[in-house]
């Protein structure tokens, strides 16, 4: 089991945004999180990477507790450096790309292998060029993010996440900030990853992508999982009224 979340709770001040989420994701599985904005799907995704602290329950990735160490029947919070080390096998792609604007495409991809894994510059560069080639941007290696289109930036961001050789990839609305005609190129790269067997959790509004690529669709609303299952079932024949109302609005 790659990801196991049990009764995950999270509040921002007095507002409880996650009200006990249970979810398991197997290795090689592609799962999409669907739901109206404010449903807590992005927050949950960020909890898996401990970018947000959870207030209750627990999440494990590859059998290791995220953000905590279990000892004597308690969960002790990890130091920032330990949390950083635990994130090595989890890649993340953001809605707003978040590329480092002061570094070129190839430097963005090289950064973590160089300064986290302490690889040699030559090895990091070779790997970075291979990854850029894989996302179709071999010719843009020397470009700064500001010189790239949104779709190109997001593909560099995917290459940058892959450079740490993750076993799990998290995508937080990866196409929501893109012009409509650029969405396809990013989804193509993601489809390629899914076909290679990468475990992926994708927060998205792209129903087509969920239907075509995902093994499972999880529909969330108001901080709870309303229903989950194969895309044919959840997207074509939802069993809950809330799912039906949402799908009518987005389709």
């Amino acid at each position: 089991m790659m990801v196991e979340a049990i009764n995950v709770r999270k509040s921002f001040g007095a507002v409880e945004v996650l009200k006990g989420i249970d979810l398991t994701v197997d290795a090689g599985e592609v799962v999409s999180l669907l739901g109206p904005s404010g449903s807590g799907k992005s927050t949950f995704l960020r909890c898996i990477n401990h970018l947000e602290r959870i207030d209750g329950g627990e999440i494990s990735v590859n059998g290791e507790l995220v953000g905590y160490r279990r000892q004597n029947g308690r969960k002790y919070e990890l130091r920032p450096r330990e949390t950083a080390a635990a994130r090595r096998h989890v890649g993340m792609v953001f809605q707003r790309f978040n590329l480092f604007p002061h570094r070129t495409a190839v430097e963005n991809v090289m950064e973590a292998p160089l300064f986290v894994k302490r690889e040699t510059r030559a090895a990091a560069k070779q790997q970075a060029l291979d990854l850029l080639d894989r996302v179709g941007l071999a010719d843009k290696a020397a470009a700064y993010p500001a010189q790239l289109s949104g779709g190109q930036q997001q593909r560099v961001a995917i290459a940058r996440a892959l450079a740490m050789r993750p076993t799990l990839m998290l995508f937080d609305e990866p196409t929501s900030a893109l012009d409509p005609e650029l969405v396809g190129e990013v989804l193509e790269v993601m489809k390629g990853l899914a076909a290679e067997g990468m475990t992926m959790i994708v927060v998205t509004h792209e129903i087509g992508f969920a239907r075509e690529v995902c093994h499972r669709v999880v529909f969330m609303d108001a901080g709870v999982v309303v229903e989950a299952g194969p895309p044919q079932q959840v997207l074509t024949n939802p069993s809950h009224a809330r799912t039906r109302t949402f799908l009518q609005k987005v389709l």
Partner: protein
Amino acid sequence: MMSTADEPIVRLRHPGRWVAAAVIVFLLVVFIHFVATAPKLRLDLVVGYLFEKSIMLGLVKTLQLTVIAMLVGAVLGTILAVMRLSENPVLRSVAGGYVWLFRGTPILVQLLFWFFLGTVVPQLSIGLPFGGPDLISWPTNTVITQFTAAILGLGLNEAAYMAEIVRAGIGSVDSGQREAAEALSMSPWITYRRVILPQAARLIVPPTANQTISMLKLTSLVLVIGLPELTTTAQLIYGRNFQQIPLLIVASLWYLVLTTILTVIQNRLENRMSRGVRR
């Protein structure tokens, strides 16, 4: 056949600019003529004293004080800024208290305080507090010379201002940058060094150049602890020969030269820092 669409375009003309430029050039010529022909201005003295030995020594002292005080200020200021933005409430309060104290008291008082430290603390020692035995100790007056007092006064004061400049720079870096670095499993230290500070630097450079140019002239305050730098040296000379204006011109010319050099460096740095920024 000529259609109206083919008629030539006439750009907006700016006759007022030409008139203004002519007036300014005329005033400049009048001023230069006045300076060159004023017999009591003693331009010959300006030329004579420009490279005079004590002026040169004062200039070197001004440069030393500026460079060292700014280095102390920038390094300590950056540390203070990172402390103020830390999650650790102890670090935050210590840095906040430092900035409060050093920004809140006059720099003149701080300079004098360090210089006269020996009058209240005759021995500087490393040992156990509350009257415990000393391990090493020095007489304060051998440690606190005019120069170290000047560096302490100027540098520690500057650190408080630099802390605020660096804090503003760090605060302007998009929070997504830190998240992206964290998600790539960078440690907090690597995140600061490779992601946050290089981007903050772009915004820190212009106000820091400002502070450096300001420091260049602020160093003349060390006059109060008897350290002769450029301005003080000029004053010492006109105290003897009563040629105030020529010697003040000598000092001003050197400040202008140094400021010009600093401005060039600032422009170079700004160009370098703007890598990847769309203009």
